[in-house]
């Protein structure tokens, strides 16, 4: 059977599962709630109801978001013909966990406390295994190049005492592994998605570096290779005012992202707005999946849509819990299912 038809079952099941993704109107209803209890009552009408019983207190909503996302990953991993597609989406969580563990190890050495509460179960590597590997300093069995990267990061910390550099090395490792796995799958859509994610991350980093007023030499190490846009072209942006970035990047698809942001002059507000716009840019890369009945990109598209749902839900619940301005929260919601 042709490779594409291997996905007939998986795509059909994902289509049925995508019917249970939260509608935008439901998120808006949550945002309209006056308190967290009413918001959770609305959530009880959805697929999240299964996790609500595990809720220890109404402020513990992050746990149910994580449980639902984790369940989606586990379910999809069971029936998808190529598990690497799910791995691709979960790897960022593995690297997040590694960051938490490295920082905790550093904190402990400095006399602080471990922050294992920040670990997530969404990664490919079971949290317990990762913790044991770091605590026993036995990294040999860690996948995704972490057996080399983890000791490297710890020795980098010993030498430089610069946590930003350590984080940077881990991010570089993450994107290199993502690109490697995407190529190994042999699916163009996976490669395009990873390249888009790298570009989005580079633009995000550039905006932060611009705010820090860092020079090109200092900024170079914060950009990741493997995207559509070459590193030198991105670095050249630092010498330009942000208003002219869309013009300089007009050769690439990512330039369209700036059109979705109302004000380019206020850098602080722009960084927040771009978080949303860049996520929507990555969603747009996968948008054509809905017109294809058998393509593997439907797997990534569903999992990415689930990620966006989790982000939107977190934004809405945090806004309700803290009683912040709902207009700001609405502006942060990711669109495009």
């Amino acid at each position, binding site marked *: 059977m042709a490779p594409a038809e291997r996905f*007939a079952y998986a795509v059909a099941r*994902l*289509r049925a599962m995508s019917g249970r993704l939260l509608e935008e109107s439901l998120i808006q209803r949550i945002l309209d709630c006056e308190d967290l209890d009413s918001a959770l009552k609305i959530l009880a009408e959805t697929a999240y109801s299964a996790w609500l019983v595990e809720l220890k207190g109404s402020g513990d909503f992050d746990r149910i978001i994580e449980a639902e996302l984790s369940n989606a990953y586990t379910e999809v991993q069971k029936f998808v013909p190529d598990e690497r597609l799910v791995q691709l989406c979960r790897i960022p969580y593995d690297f997040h966990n590694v960051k938490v563990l490295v920082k905790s190890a550093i904190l402990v050495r400095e006399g602080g406390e471990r922050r294992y509460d920040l670990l997530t179960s969404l990664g490919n590597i079971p949290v317990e295994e990762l913790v044991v590997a770091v605590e026993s300093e036995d990294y040999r069995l860690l996948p995704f190049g972490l057996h080399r990267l983890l000791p490297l990061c710890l020795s980098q910390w010993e030498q430089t005492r610069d946590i930003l550099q350590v984080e940077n090395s881990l991010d570089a490792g993450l994107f290199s592994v993502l690109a490697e796995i995407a190529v190994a799958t042999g699916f163009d859509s996976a490669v395009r998605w990873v390249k888009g994610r790298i570009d989005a991350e580079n633009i995000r980093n550039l905006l932060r570096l611009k705010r820090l007023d860092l020079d090109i030499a200092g900024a170079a190490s914060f950009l990741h290779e493997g995207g559509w846009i070459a590193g030198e072209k991105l670095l050249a942006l630092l010498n330009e005012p942000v208003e002219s970035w869309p013009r300089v990047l007009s050769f690439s698809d990512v330039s369209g992202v700036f059109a979705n942001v109302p004000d380019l002059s206020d850098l602080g507000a722009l960084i927040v707005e771009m978080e949303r716009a860049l996520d929507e840019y990555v969603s747009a890369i996968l948008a054509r999946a809905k017109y294809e009945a058998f393509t593997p990109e439907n797997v990534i598209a569903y999992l990415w849509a689930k990620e966006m749902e989790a982000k939107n839900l977190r934004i809405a619940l945090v806004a309700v819990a803290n009683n912040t301005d709902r207009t700001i929260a609405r502006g942060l919601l990711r669109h495009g299912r």
Partner: protein
Amino acid sequence: MELLGVMLAILGAAMAAGWAGAGSAIGVGIAGESGAGVMTEDPGKFGLVLLLQALPGTQGIYGLLIAFFAILKVGLLGGEPIAVTAYQGLGIFFACLPIAIGGYFSAIAQGKTSAASIQMIAKRPEETGKAVILPAMVETYAVLSLLMSIILLNGIKL
């Protein structure tokens, strides 16, 4: 020479039933995989899924029909065997080709369309009518192949 004529007619019949049947098997299989995917999440859609999965199965029936016509024509199904020249046998063989080729490819295409339609009703159950029409359009070409095979078989005088 007479034996060669009968053999060619049998080859045509075998191709009509075999290729059209193989196409149907592939088509029904593709649609079935999609159907199973949808029903895992929503078992209530069984009726619709079954209808859409069955659509690519018709080509196999058409192929079998033409195969019967072909072997009936040369008297292999009861009655007296008919003397068939090599040219007549070749004619029967060619007459079987439209449904063999048309049936094989249209069944696979219909299977894919049915699978896509099954995905469509998974997401938009209210569009069921449209979901049935789309794969039914592919059936047109299987029917045209069947008609051509029947017309050609009838045109061969033994």
